[in-house]
């Protein structure tokens, strides 16, 4: 056996160094482990300063001893390569291990061990842990806001129906695949709107809006039999005409009667809230901001200077101001700009404001995609004799949108994360409901539980979305 130089661990004395180093490292981790899990301190005979630093010093020496390159032991080499490349890394690794060990017990005890789950009053929450009873009692409020308890099945049913209808794309056969875009861009939003308007909001079944839908459905059905040559003029004139006829001639007399044909109980938007409102707002803003953003992205790249300037002005304006001021504007300034007897619901105003705001960001993202396409694509499309719209719909946009999937997903993520801001216009989604529940005199002092609960929900939603967008990106990655 050769002479051992403790300042230079080498392969010749591998076993000595390995046993000694592992032992020291093990002791240091064990010390911290016992200290944090069982609050034992077997170095208490030392001065407190030294006792505090001892695990770090021991662990450092231990890691120094086992840092032997090409030892031939697989796991040792892996360890050295990943957490023990040099002194600095060794100290950082040790610190992180210690932090994790130290933070597990308090977190675990707060979340689970000392927490109270049972019961439905504040009295059970006497321990030092979290009071999940609070969440349990307030669950309905956090999910549905002030929506009447007896009517909440309407929200559930609508959401289930919308999720089912939304997942049609996965089950569509090849025959229907070409209609999917049409379905998702036009039909699905319409169905969703009807669901939310008639089902969640409730109220009379027949009123102005219904005539529009009836007119649209009838004219589309007849439209199939109109020769292509006249289709454009047909759709320009007939639906409007039909609407007027329906509204003022056919149903006019019966309107008063029909107006009384109440559907479900009407629930005003002020009572909507909680997580379901978060979903409703995110959903509609997402639907609206995409086409608006696309229009302004094309406008910004347009050859017409006036259209370009207007688009640039729109985009830069919305991107330059914070969302909270936009919502302020929709709350206090926007009603001033409308005719006096014209009233727009505050939820609708909030949705319009957020959609316009996010549309500007979507526009910039799409513009990035449009700019990233090589000129050759435009020139090739033009040389085939395609016009502006044909070129964009069939050649440019499909490629550009593929390029910007991550950017769009980020914008949508930002949108979901921005929804709590609607407290400005007086709507309370989940974070707003938390703040309301927190001030309830019966349940004071549980702010932490509420925020942690909401944070977990948002985190799951946002993380899932970002992972999904990553998958989409991988799926649509085309080599060019």
């Amino acid at each position, binding site marked *: 056996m050769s002479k051992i130089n403790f300042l230079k661990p080498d392969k010749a004395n591998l076993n000595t160094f390995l046993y000694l180093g592992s032992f020291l490292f093990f002791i240091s981790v064990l010390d911290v482990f016992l200290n944090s899990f069982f609050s034992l301190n077997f170095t208490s005979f030392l001065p407190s300063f030294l006792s505090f630093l001892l695990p770090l010093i021991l662990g450092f020496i231990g890691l120094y001893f086992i840092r032997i390159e090409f030892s031939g032991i697989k796991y040792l080499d892996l360890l050295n390569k990943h957490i023990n490349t040099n002194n600095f*890394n060794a100290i950082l690794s040790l610190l992180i291990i210690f932090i994790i060990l130290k933070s597990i017990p308090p977190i675990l005890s707060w979340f689970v061990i000392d927490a109270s789950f049972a019961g439905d009053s504040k009295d059970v929450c006497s321990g030092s842990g979290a009071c999940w009873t609070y969440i349990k009692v307030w669950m309905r409020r956090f999910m549905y806001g002030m929506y009447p308890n007896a009517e909440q099945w309407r929200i559930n049913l609508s959401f289930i129906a919308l999720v089912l209808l939304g997942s049609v794309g996965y089950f569509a056969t090849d025959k229907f695949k070409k209609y999917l875009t049409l379905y998702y861009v036009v039909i699905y939003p319409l169905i969703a709107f009807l669901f939310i308007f008639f089902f969640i909001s409730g109220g009379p079944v027949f009123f102005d809006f219904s005539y529009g839908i009836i007119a649209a459905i009838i004219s589309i059905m007849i439209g199939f039999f109109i020769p292509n040559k006249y289709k454009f003029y047909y759709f320009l004139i007939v639906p409007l005409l039909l609407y007027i006829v329906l509204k003022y001639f056919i149903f006019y007399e019966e309107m008063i009667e029909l107006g009384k044909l109440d559907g479900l109980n009407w629930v005003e938007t002020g009572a909507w809230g909680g997580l379901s409102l978060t979903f409703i707002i995110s959903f509609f803003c997402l639907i609206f901001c995409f086409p608006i953003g696309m229009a302004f992205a094309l406008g910004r790249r347009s050859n*017409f200077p006036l259209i370009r300037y*207007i688009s640039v002005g729109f985009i830069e304006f919305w991107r330059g101001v*914070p969302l*909270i001021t936009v919502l302020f*504007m929709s709350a206090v300034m926007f009603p*001033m700009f409308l005719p*006096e007897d014209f009233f727009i619901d505050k939820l609708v105003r909030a949705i319009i404001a957020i959609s316009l705001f996010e549309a500007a960001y979507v526009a910039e993202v799409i513009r990035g995609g449009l700019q990233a396409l090589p000129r050759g694509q435009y020139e090739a499309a033009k040389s085939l004799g395609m016009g502006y719209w044909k070129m964009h719909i069939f050649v440019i946009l499909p490629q550009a949108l593929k390029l910007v999937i991550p950017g769009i997903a980020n914008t949508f993520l930002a949108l979901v994360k921005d929804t709590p801001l609607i407290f400005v216009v007086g709507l309370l989604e989940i974070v707003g409901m938390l703040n309301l529940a927190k001030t309830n005199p019966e349940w004071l002092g549980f*702010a932490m539980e509420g925020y942690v609960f909401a944070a977990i929900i948002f985190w799951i939603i946002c*993380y899932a979305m970002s992972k999904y967008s990553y998958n989409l990106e991988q799926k649509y990655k085309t080599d060019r």
Partner: protein
Amino acid sequence: MNFKLKDIVPQLVTVIAVVLIFGFFTYNAQINMENRGIDFGYGFLSQESSFDVQFSLIEYDGSHSYFRAYLVGLLNTILVSVIGIIIATILGVIVGVARLSNNYLINKFAAFYVEFFRNIPLLLQIFFWYFAALRALPLPQDAEAIFGVFFLTIKGLYVPAFVWQNFNIFFYSIVAAVLAIIIIHIHSKKVQENQGKQIPVFLISLGLIFILPLLGFVLGGVRLSFEVPVLKQLATTSFIYEGGVSLPPELIALTLSLSLYTATFIAECVRAGIQGVGKGQKEAAASIGLTPNQVLKLVIMPQALRIIIPPTTNQYLNLTKNSSLAAAIAYPDLVLVFAGTALMQTGKAIEIVSITMFTYLTLSISISILMNWYNKKIAIQEK
């Protein structure tokens, strides 16, 4: 000139539509204001505001004008943004570099941090810090001193105040040091280009920035003392710290959440920037005999910064705009003071909201113009 109808019609239609919409809005606004008896005008800015603001950088009370209140709000916004940007940058760069570390634990720890804070709404984080975390702090009388001079209590953070004597001299000495450093930089560059000699610029700069102010202390009679906050009893159960500088809990919660949140985005920018520099660049630089430090300074950083800076500036802008969430926890920023309190008092919705938006707009657009100029300057000159 070759006017085509096809070119003009779409533009004309768009312009007419925009003009019509704006006309419609203005017309309605006029009628509405007439009906409610509100007159349009910015004259209220010079009127007495008669409301107080909790926390202000400049002297302000109810007897000052609305314009002064606007300035108070603006300065508070800038204060929180600047502190937030500094902390977020430091944290973001550290985390971004840690994300590229070959140490598995550090790498995962940084990734965890980024994924965790990025996916929780900022407003929720602000509420969490303000209503949950900072409320768990001790009362002033129970607070323990940190390093003997800082007091972190439920009523805010109390730090010692600097009390300067002959502050002017100190200030001028720093200005002189900065000027001297700039001159030395220019000179050393010239020397290196002409003669190939290298001057240890960094050491000289470090020396200058310490020695010149130190001279001020020794020769110029500059004195610095600290005013440490002292606990004072107001009533039997009410205590407060006097002296020193107090940072209200709103400010702490806001800067903390803003910087923790924005740092995740900056970290991703930094990571993308460093990864964006090709491996070949590093190898080529090493093969022509540059030292690792020189490789980093002369080859990697200039290229990485070109990728890092534009998105990072965007994040700075976002942070500044996000600081308007202060209104939710009653930190007196521009939105709360001006678009909140002042609007309630005057009822001048259009004027006040437009001024607020215009302020943010000016801030963003001036920074993006600066950025575009910078981008053009550092862009690779392609032949």
